[in-house]
């Protein structure tokens, strides 16, 4: 009888500090220990990036191995017996720290990192308090590489984390190491400056205070801040950003606790683009146009004035038009459409559309697994990007794909109107003139048929019939396909889900009395009231109706607010509670981090107008949790598990299954084409975004 060949083990058993542990084969010892709650100190090792083995901090004792081993490069092996804290190891780590401190200045009292510095923590733990090194420290002056990044070479411990984060994580490769030995230092790609995404990932990943950000440096101590996890309000990717807040002021944004779908990833907008919140042009008082001039009035006067006007127009059977912003919360959008439909008896409600998700839903109806989540982008074996400069427009989705390529050898295909960063690591990259993306897909058909699965991400050049064609074409590939319909802003998807569309009710039910779209409202000369909530539709278009009464909720006196008859100063997304839905249909909670005196959230403004009009009972309580309860109960797809939301996670909305039989106004779907450094009307009020040399950036350049 022959014995069958032993199957490769699926689990490896080993011992660390007397504890029996197990992990899948190939797991690095440092990771396996971390999962078991055993911390092995390391500066250079960073989960998800390539191994460096430069710092010598993670040394452990392994039985039968003569020398100390680096846990960051050692895969677990069957029967391995490891000790992670012994006298010998303490001595070794202490020695390493003593070496690091030969050149590292002890300026912790003024260093930004003081209090959350990994080197400080390790010296505290191992107590390398005395140094045998009495020579002069090699001190180089601090340098500013960009409006965001400062580098202090003396503090740098050369762990290469920033280099790898920039190279591998961001795909930019703006950082390198120059010189040798004691003279080594990090060098930027522009000689004396950075030419990059300005994402600040290098700053956040720095274990010491060598890389610091201009927005945060020397402003506060880490322990003086409250840390509020909320969702970035710029693009549609829905990255969690943890705002460091002190005295009602946002000091910084990062996500070091890796909560949220994005882990630690943030782009320049999520990390630094919060400064619009404290912009000096922020509106803080309601205004009414009196004798042609906007004048500040009290809240009660402005609310009463608007309510009276709405009531009289409504009584006279006048025409309302409501334009909702794509940065509002789901609760606000739901409440607003209810206000419009039930209160004002008008379905003239819309948002500025940037992707044809509606047609996609209709085209894939009957297939419950056809919408990709952010996780799918990291796990898929192949992805196809059509007509979008992902690294510029959807930085987190691009980051997921890069990680997928690094960790899972995924194949990326791009069909774009210009060269994109993804081309560098793609299996095939096709450049075609705008509008011809769909026709170019045929070149890839054969290649894609050989893949096991595919996620298709498509931009605004695929809309209407094209979406159906795309789904039909993907059907011919004979492999499982999932889709992401790319949209522009933090709650563009939520606006559609919440029925902020003239022909669709919440949950994509057809509206029996369809109303006017944004374009139609602006072009209609019979409009009596234009109510703009957190949007800037008059940025490029003029309102056709001369006598329309314009009400605007706005943070700034933009093109729309400055022509309005009444302006309500609204709170920003960082001052709101509620939920938003990202481009991949994942709902996350917004948490109010700060307050700006004089402003109110849009939900509160809506509720107060309803109350003034005597319709509060009909439209409902304007508290975000009450409105969410209603959304959760009544909107298709939103009966998501609440524990996920409450604990700050991202709940995937259930796919809406079934036909969405409405006409889609294809002409109104157009992406604003924001780059990493622009963010619609909002981006103009972020001084940081407009100050980086890369501003405004261009799509399809890299």
């Amino acid at each position, binding site marked *: 009888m022959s014995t069958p060949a032993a199957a490769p083990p699926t689990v490896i058993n080993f011992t660390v500090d007397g504890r029996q542990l197990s992990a899948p084969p190939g797991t690095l010892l440092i990771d396996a220990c971390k999962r078991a709650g055993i911390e092995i100190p390391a500066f250079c090792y960073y989960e998800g990036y390539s191994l460096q083995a430069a710092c010598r901090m993670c040394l452990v004792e392994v039985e039968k191995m003569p020398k100390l081993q680096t846990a960051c490069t050692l895969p677990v092996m069957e029967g391995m017996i490891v000790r992670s804290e012994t006298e010998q190891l303490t001595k070794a780590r202490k020695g390493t720290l003593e070496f690091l401190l030969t050149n590292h200045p002890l300026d912790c009292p003024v260093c930004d990192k003081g209090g959350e510095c990994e080197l400080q923590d390790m010296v505290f733990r191992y107590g390398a308090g005395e140094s045998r090194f009495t020579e002069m420290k090699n001190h180089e002056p601090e340098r500013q590489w960009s409006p965001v990044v400062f580098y202090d070479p003396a503090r740098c411990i050369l762990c290469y984390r920033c280099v790898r984060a920039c190279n591998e994580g961001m795909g930019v*490769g*703006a950082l390198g190491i*120059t010189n040798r030995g004691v003279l080594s230092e990090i060098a930027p*790609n522009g000689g004396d400056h950075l030419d990059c995404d300005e994402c600040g990932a290098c700053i956040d990943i720095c274990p010491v205070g060598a890389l610091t950000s201009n927005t945060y440096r020397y402003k506060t101590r880490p322990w003086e801040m409250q840390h509020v996890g909320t969702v970035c309000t710029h693009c549609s990717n829905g990255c969690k950003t943890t705002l460091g807040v002190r005295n009602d002021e946002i000091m910084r944004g990062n996500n070091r606790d890796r909560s949220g779908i994005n882990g630690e990833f943030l782009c320049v907008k999520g990390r630094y683009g919060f400064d619009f919140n404290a912009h000096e042009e922020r509106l803080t008082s309601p205004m009414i146009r009196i004798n042609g001039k906007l004048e500040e009035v009290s809240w009660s006067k402005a609310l009463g004035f608007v309510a009276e006007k709405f009531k009289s127009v409504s009584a006279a059977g006048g025409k309302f038009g409501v334009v909702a912003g794509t940065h509002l919360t789901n609760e606000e959008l739901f409440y607003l459409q209810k206000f419009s439909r039930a209160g004002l008896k008008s379905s003239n409600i819309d948002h500025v559309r940037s992707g044809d998700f509606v047609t996609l839903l209709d085209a894939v109806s009957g297939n419950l697994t056809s919408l990709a989540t952010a996780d799918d982008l990291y796990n898929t074996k192949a992805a196809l990007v059509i007509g979008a400069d992902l690294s510029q427009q959807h930085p987190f989705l691009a980051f997921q794909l890069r990680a997928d390529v690094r960790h899972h050898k995924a194949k990326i295909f791009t069909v774009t109107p210009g060269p994109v960063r993804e081309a560098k690591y793609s299996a095939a990259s096709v450049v075609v003139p705008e509008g011809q993306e769909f026709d170019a897909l045929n070149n890839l058909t054969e290649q894609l048929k050989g893949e096991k699965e595919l996620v298709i991400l498509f931009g605004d050049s695929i809309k209407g019939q094209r979406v159906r064609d795309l789904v039909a074409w993907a059907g011919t590939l004979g492999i499982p396909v999932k889709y992401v319909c790319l949209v522009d802003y933090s709650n563009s998807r939520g606006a559609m889900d919440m029925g902020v569309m003239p022909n669709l009710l919440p949950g994509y039910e057809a509206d029996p009395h369809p109303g006017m779209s944004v374009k139609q409202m602006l072009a209609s000369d019979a409009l009596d009231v234009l109510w703009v909530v957190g949007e800037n539709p008059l940025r490029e278009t003029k309102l056709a109706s001369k006598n329309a009464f314009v009400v605007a909720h706005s943070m700034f006196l933009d093109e729309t607010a400055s022509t309005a008859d009444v302006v309500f100063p609204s709170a920003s997304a960082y001052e709101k509670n509620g939920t938003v839905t990202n481009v991949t249909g994942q709902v996350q909670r917004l948490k109010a981090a700060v307050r700006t005196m004089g402003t109110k959230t849009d939900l509160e403004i809506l509720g107060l107008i309803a109350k003034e009009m005597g319709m509060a009972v009909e439209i409902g309580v304007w508290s975000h949790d009450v409105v969410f309860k209603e959304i959760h109960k009544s909107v298709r797809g939103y009966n998501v598990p609440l524990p996920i939301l409450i604990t700050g996670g991202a709940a995937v909305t259930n796919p809406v299954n079934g036909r969405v039989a409405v006409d889609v106004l294809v002409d109104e779907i157009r992406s604003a084409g924001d780059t990493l450094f622009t963010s619609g009307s909002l981006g103009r009020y972020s001084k940081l975004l407009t100050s980086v040399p890369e501003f405004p950036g261009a799509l399809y350049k890299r």
Partner: protein
Amino acid sequence: MTFTPETEKRLQDIWSRYPAGRKRSAVIPMLMYAQDELGMVTQELIAEVAQRCEVSPLQVEEVVGYYSMLNKQKMGKHHVQVCTNIACLLMGGEELWQHTTKRLGIGHKQITADGLISLEEVECAGACSWAPCVVDGYEYHHHMTIEKLDQLLDSIQKKVQ
């Protein structure tokens, strides 16, 4: 960037030494050979090598910064390296170095006014068995004495006259 046909051929030949798809392997030899022709590593050269080897200019900069034999300053027609590491030091390397600097009137990593000779004090040229050693370009001179060194420098300077 254009090189002389000989250099160009040398640069092209490098590829054959490495497996296909490993273009970046050629960064160091390419820089070396090009430096021989140009007398230094220029920014233009860095960009050229980066493009040829399909890496970023910064990655080439990293290599140039790391290796002391790649010079971003102009080198002399003859780059004379005097070893003062332990074996050579014991055999009189330090005296050789002192003599050379005095005779030429230049120091470490400096170049004579006529651009003929540049000088570098190096750590181990790998010829300890024949110490002390002086390297002129790629040419090794073993068991050096001050007399032999003078002859060498004479011959370099004479060639020009």
